[in-house]
């Protein structure tokens, strides 16, 4: 399957190890209903928050399990304020890769095909835990 990612994405990004996004995923956001701009990476925005030579800046963080969501909510005040949304993606939507760091060995990134919209695939899964 071939994909088209947004302009400006670094060479060799997404990494070869990333696989077609045929998976259940969870995504957190402040809004109860997701919009297309919730799926725009900082790289695509040209945000100066990150070193945009890093491939991870051009993807979106996702959780692959409910346990990972619960764990993030336990440790992160900000995530407790979010709505959690769940979707079952298909292969054509993009690719998912493991993007681990030493303190976060199970971090996953979703690189969305720029011609695909996944917004409507997400259903509301959890209310925020905190105001």
């Amino acid at each position, binding site marked *: 399957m071939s994909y088209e990612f947004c302009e400006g994405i670094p060479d060799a990004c997404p990494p070869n190890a990333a696989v077609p996004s045929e998976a259940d995923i969870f995504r957190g956001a402040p809004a109860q209903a997701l919009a297309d701009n919730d799926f725009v990476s900082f790289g695509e925005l040209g945000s100066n928050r990150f070193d945009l030579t890093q491939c991870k800046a051009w993807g979106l963080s996702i959780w692959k399990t409910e346990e990972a969501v619960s764990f993030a909510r336990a440790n992160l005040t900000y995530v407790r304020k979010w709505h959690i949304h769940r979707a079952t993606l298909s292969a054509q939507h993009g690719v998912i890769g493991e993007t681990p760091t030493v*303190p976060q060995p199970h971090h996953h990134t979703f690189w969305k095909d720029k011609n695909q919209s996944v917004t409507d695939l997400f259903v509301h899964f959890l209310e925020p835990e905190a105001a």
Partner: protein
Amino acid sequence: MPWDFAWEEAPRAPGRVTPEDVLYFYDEPLIYVSTMGFFDAICSKIDDNGTSNLVLICPTDNKTLAALKGGLISVRGALTAKNYWVADVDYDYVVRRAWTVPSNDLPEEYLPKKAYGLYPSFGRVPDTIEQAKAFFSIKFSGSELHADQMPFQTFKDLVNSAFSATKSLMTPYLLNGYKSPDVFNMPVAQPSFSSLAISVMKPEMDIAVINSRYARNQTVYSEQDIVRATTNRRNEFFEQAGELIEEINNGEISDHFAAEKVDWLKVILEVSPNPQRSIEDVEFTALTNQGRAYLHIDGNAGEKIRHAYEKALTAPVVMEGVIVEINGDSSTFLVRNTLTHRQVTCILLEETFKRLDRDGIITRGAHLRLRGNVESRVRRDKLRLTVDPEPIPVVIV
């Protein structure tokens, strides 16, 4: 809306909080370490108003960071300080304004939940380094237990409960009934507040006195034998209390379970959450050869334990004890409960007493499993036996 708070504004706010070591990333660094001049700080994103972030800044050090990354303490534990900064930080990590917030004033929701390690694989971990390194630790949490003070009476009651439970739970069976701390003693680390963590270290002892007073059959014990016996008792506590928590997680504590484990319920109840003392959570931790042991009793579980204990006493219960005195005239004997260390008067029918006496069951020093109805009394409980006592072998060391 820009952030604004009533807290005292920091006169010299840190200039930048650039992420240097990202601990949790989700689209951006949410928890990270930043170097600020001469010290490091852990920064945790609390909110985002669309133009800047609200960030909790907690001074830290290499020892705390190593403990966090090694799974010795929780993220909450690493974010424990007397004073914090809450800062308005722009998306370039420049601090625009900052407020100095004493820990007592910091909203609870700004902090991580208790006992979660940095990695999921760490499981539940202690919130303080003292707990992490302890031979055995009890941590009480509640609304009255602040970082800088707590009611004197509460402190006294909790220390008494922790002392009494630790003595019951950790003393080797060989030393059952010992009185002198010169003979066997478990030192404690400096108690830590903002909750009350009592962390007990490995026992110290006078092995010569132990061998002269307590050794049986001319056995000579070494200090290692006594430490091993104490360790076995500690592990037994985690096993028994773990079974109790599992029973609670499965619904209710069954009558049968409560009757069989009534002494465990009694000892655990002594250090369980108690609304009258404003104790909402209790955690037990220990560093064992197999890793870290951890148990958590919340207010709901504490209430179930209390209810099960009180109900159990209305029917026959099981306990274990060693006969310390026999009174043939009244067909009674006195046992020292092996778990609670309290003496209990056991009452039998005269003919049953005579038969058991004749059979050599009722002898001083015999270790018995007893079943009967408890009559609670201030000085010494009575146990009216409903079945014959059962002699049991005991591994005392």
